[in-house]
């Protein structure tokens, strides 16, 4: 299993703040596609990806067991 976290407008669009599913072995690109099909309101094209609380640039990176992935919308803190 892997865990996806949803923040801000994503959380509101999906209606929950996280999702666990059997995504081991999928790459980041595939996870995005899977989520966008499951939740058509989600738009992940302008997000940064974080895996286990670190930014990850490599879209080919494969998900491992217990990975926590988040698609970070443009930030607006400060």
């Amino acid at each position: 299993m892997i865990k996806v976290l949803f923040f801000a407008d994503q959380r509101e669009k999906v209606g929950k703040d996280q999702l666990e599913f059997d995504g081991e072995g999928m790459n980041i690109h595939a996870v995005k596609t899977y989520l966008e099909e499951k939740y058509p309101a989600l738009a992940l094209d302008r997000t940064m990806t974080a895996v286990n609380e670190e930014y990850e640039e490599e879209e080919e990176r494969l998900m491992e067991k217990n990975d926590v992935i988040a698609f970070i919308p443009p930030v607006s803190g400060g």
Partner: protein
Amino acid sequence: MEYYKITSQEIDVNEVVSSVIHPESGAVNTFIGTVREFTGQKQTVSLQYEAYPSMAEKQLCRIGSEISDRWPGVKTSIVHRTGKLAISDIAVVIAVASPHRAESYEASRYAIERIKEIVPIWKKEYWVDGEEWIGDQLEQTSYPNGRPEEERHD
């Protein structure tokens, strides 16, 4: 002792300042972000901040490391509040201590710019006539490399 924290509580500026003062420092610069009522004609009623807390604290800590790499001997603490904030409430406090004043200004400015680039915190604005996640509407911001650039302020 430097610290990097996401909190839902009110931020005590004295505490953040004290945490960076040390015998080699002669200057502390702080930047404090507050909730502004008017942006042009648009009237804000309140704000809500949400964070990815564990990751946000790591990114704040990274900003502190970037600062001590660039300005040796400079110490930084950063606290960002989450939850619903009213007009004039304090959202963020950055404190930077350095031997001389020039670096304290430069490093403080660097910290707030970096927060706005890499720290996973989002603001929802509640106006008299609506509400919106600010990150959501920023059509001009996108991340072609999948993550923010390493350091774009030189």
